[in-house]
């Protein structure tokens, strides 16, 4: 059977089709091979040249926080208005009119703007960091060549707070002063550019670098500053400078255990958001750049050195009988005629003659050595720009008069920070620490890159000597001392007053009517939490440190200890006593249900020694519950706020004394009466709860006996 013509044609066509189907993919594959392999690199480069662009990554300046994470300096995006003068001139006929409209809207100089718009450039600033309203109004003008873009702006939400510590950054985000300058490199981040892919419309399509731009961001910095203590320091300092009509003042608050600077305040001060309008006096960081003669505040350091060297013993008597001590033909006086004084009295009464004799017994070389060891004449090392060391000339260059006056702080100089750090050495068992200002530095990814730890500079004196001098310093703030104005009810305060004449650069010697008044001390003296140094420059109303600077110390220390939750010594021992001592109205009746005040023992149940009965605290406000629990010798854990809604263990349970009672508080019901007055609390706790319960009356009478030092004093 022979093949028909039709069949042959079909076969041929099929073969051709098959050949075509076989060859076409080969051609496609061949072309693909050419594009993907042979000319791949050339084509890739060509494509990248068309679509890839370099994008400048402007890092955001890192924020500055206080020790508890409160923002002190932050950067936010603000609108910046700029112009392309060439484009503007091309599109707008009357450039002068446009400049006038813009200048009026943005409240800028019209002539200056006209000059800018007349330039031959492609880019000029019109107004940087404009307000949202201004940028909106500028855009509404719809002027060709006028554009708005985003630019970071530095804000200081607390305005004047810690102005000298923070410093400020300029319009380009560069640190000018303070921490902003000190850590500028870290805060600023790294300015880099990243290759990005853009589509035909110029839109960024993708860049792995953009996804990882956190690495270029500026680091965040946490300071050791406590925002609240800083506020207290600034408030009290301003009040003191104004009250005493002083020229200026500075305060430094330090944690003596770690050397952390908790507050550093100067007055006059300035608003960081308006730094360009501050004058030099306002910008001056006096606490670290201004030297002053410490006056009597240097006496404890000399005494410590003398005690350590064995030049003076605690049991010695120093003859301060004469009216004056003649050295090199000049007289050194005391404020009063003291007679024979113990070393402790030399400090508490601030005898110049006494400490001069102690310094003489110590000898020049050892006097110089001990003062230097305490940090005088040495840079404190906070790292803040402009920080200076006080001056303490080498003892070989001292005149006889220097050797006699340096023990009471004339003829040498220090700074407020240095004085605070030196005084902290007594509070820190004789160890001198370096001041810490930066607690932590965290990078853009949130990882800590730097963490500051306390650094001991030197063990200046032994713990025993430090303790002995601390006792002397406590004497300063108790009756008969020069710093009784610094005494705080309920706390033991150790400190020293200082009053120094200022040198007169015009006439030589000392000015008769210019003084620097200071007070440096710490509290509580037996477990120091804070060291505070207060310096007032040229106070007019009074000039003694005990009268001018000590009250600032007291108010600031009192507020700071309260803020830190440091209980008063006597309160710590017996809180009940404090509650009982609260002013009460004798005729006031309890307004709170008191049925749970005393839980009757269930029948057949007796308390073994060391056991107590859990009172019913449900429905009581936290304060009342705390008092009752304490009265029953129980510890309390509170959760929530309001009145007690649940308690564990249950009321009536017999438990060991000191057992933890968990109280859940919730919002009080509307029908509940108002919380009780202090007098009601007193009545509640007055009810006997057990034979071994503390006797409020005894505690109260103890408190009544506590000495309250008079608030009068005079510095030597």
């Amino acid at each position, binding site marked *: 059977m022979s093949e028909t013509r039709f069949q042959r044609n079909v076969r041929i066509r099929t073969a051709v089709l098959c050949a075509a189907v076989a060859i076409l993919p080969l051609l*496609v594959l061949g072309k693909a091979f050419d594009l993907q392999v042979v000319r791949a690199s050339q084509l890739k480069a060509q494509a990248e040249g068309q679509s890839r662009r370099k994008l400048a990554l402007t890092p955001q300046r890192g924020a500055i926080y206080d020790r508890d994470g409160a*923002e002190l300096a*932050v950067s*936010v995006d603000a609108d910046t208005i700029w112009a392309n003068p060439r484009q503007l001139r091309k599109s707008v006929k009357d450039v002068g009119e446009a400049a006038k409209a813009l200048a009026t809207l943005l409240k800028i100089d019209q002539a200056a703007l006209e000059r800018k718009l007349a330039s031959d450039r492609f880019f000029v600033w019109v107004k940087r960091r404009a307000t949202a309203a201004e940028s909106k109004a500028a855009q509404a003008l719809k002027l060709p060549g006028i554009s708005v873009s*985003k630019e970071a702006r530095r804000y200081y939400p607390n305005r004047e707070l810690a102005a000298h510590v923070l410093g400020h950054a300029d319009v380009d985000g560069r640190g000018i002063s303070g921490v902003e300058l000190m850590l500028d490199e870290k805060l600023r981040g790294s300015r880099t550019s990243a290759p990005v892919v853009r589509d035909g419309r110029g839109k*960024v399509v993708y860049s792995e670098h953009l996804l990882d731009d956190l690495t270029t961001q500026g680091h965040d910095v946490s300071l050791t500053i406590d925002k609240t203590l800083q506020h207290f320091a600034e408030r009290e300092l301003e009040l003191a400078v104004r009250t005493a009509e002083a020229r200026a003042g500075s305060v430094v608050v330090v944690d003596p255990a770690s050397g952390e600077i908790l507050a550093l305040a100067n007055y006059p001060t300035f608003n960081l958001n308006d730094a360009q309008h501050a004058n030099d006096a306002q910008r001056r960081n006096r606490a670290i750049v201004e030297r002053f003669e410490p006056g009597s505040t240097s006496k404890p350091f000399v005494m410590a050195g003398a005690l350590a060297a064995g030049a003076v013993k605690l049991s010695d008597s120093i003859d301060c009988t004469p009216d004056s001590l003649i050295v090199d033909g000049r007289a050194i006086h005391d404020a009063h005629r003291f007679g024979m004084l113990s070393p402790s009295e030399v400090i508490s009464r601030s005898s110049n003659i006494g400490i001069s004799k102690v310094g003489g017994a110590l000898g020049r070389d050892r006097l110089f050595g001990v003062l230097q060891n305490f940090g005088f004449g040495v840079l404190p090392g906070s790292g803040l720009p402009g920080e200076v060391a006080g001056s303490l000339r080498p003892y070989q260059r001292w005149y006889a008069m220097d050797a006699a006056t340096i023990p009471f702080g004339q003829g040498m100089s220090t700074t407020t920070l240095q004085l605070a750090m030196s005084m902290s050495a007594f509070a820190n068992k004789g160890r001198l620490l370096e001041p810490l200002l930066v607690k932590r530095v965290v990078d853009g990814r949130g990882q800590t890159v730097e963490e500051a730890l306390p650094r001991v500079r030197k063990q200046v004196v032994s713990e025993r000597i430090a303790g002995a001098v601390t006792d002397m310093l406590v004497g300063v703030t108790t009756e008969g001392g020069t710093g009784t104005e610094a005494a705080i009810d309920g706390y033991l305060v150790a400190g020293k007053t200082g009053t120094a004449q200022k040198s007169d650069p015009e006439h030589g010697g000392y000015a008769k009517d210019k003084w620097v008044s200071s007070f440096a001390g710490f509290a509580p003296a037996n477990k120091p939490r804070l060291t505070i140094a207060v310096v007032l420059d040229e106070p007019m109303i009074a000039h003694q440190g005990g009268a001018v600077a000590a009250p600032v110390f007291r108010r600031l220390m009192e507020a700071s200890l309260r803020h*830190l*939750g440091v209980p008063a010594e006597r309160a710590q021992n017996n809180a009940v006593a404090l509650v009982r001592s609260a002013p009460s109205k004798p005729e006031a009746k309890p307004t709170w249900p008191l049925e749970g005040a005393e839980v009757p023992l269930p029948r057949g149940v007796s308390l073994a020694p060391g056991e107590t009965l859990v009172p019913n605290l449900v429905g009581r406000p936290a304060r009342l519950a705390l008092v009752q629990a304490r009265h029953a010798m129980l510890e309390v854990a509170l959760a929530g706020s309001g009145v007690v809604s649940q308690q564990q263990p249950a009321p009536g349970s017999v438990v060991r004394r000191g057992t933890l009672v968990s109280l859940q508080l919730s919002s009080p019901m509307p029908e509940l009466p108002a919380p009780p007055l202090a007098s009601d609390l007193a009545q509640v706790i007055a009810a006997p709860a057990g034979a071994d319960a503390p006797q409020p009356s005894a505690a109260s009478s103890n408190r009544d006996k506590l000495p309250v030092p008079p608030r009068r004093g005079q510095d030597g």
Partner: protein
Amino acid sequence: MKVRFLKYWVIVVVAITLAFGVHLLLLSENAHMSYKLADLKLQEERLKAQRNLLALEAATLRQVDRVEAIARGSFGMEVPKPSHVIVMGRTQEQHASGRGR
């Protein structure tokens, strides 16, 4: 033999076509994801800027003197006197340094 060849050939061609299609699909998906990433990045930046603004606003509202003024003025609060302080034994040990939080 021819039929067998044709069968294999068709399979190969279909496979290549499918691979090409998948390749195109992946390219398109890649471009789509890139746009999405870029948009998300932009959104992230906007949110960050917004967060910074809110943080600034919150910090301004938390100014110590402002809080103090409101506490004293609007709520009639006052600084607690020692008689208002009740010491809780265990809490004292919790904050050896810094405030108890």
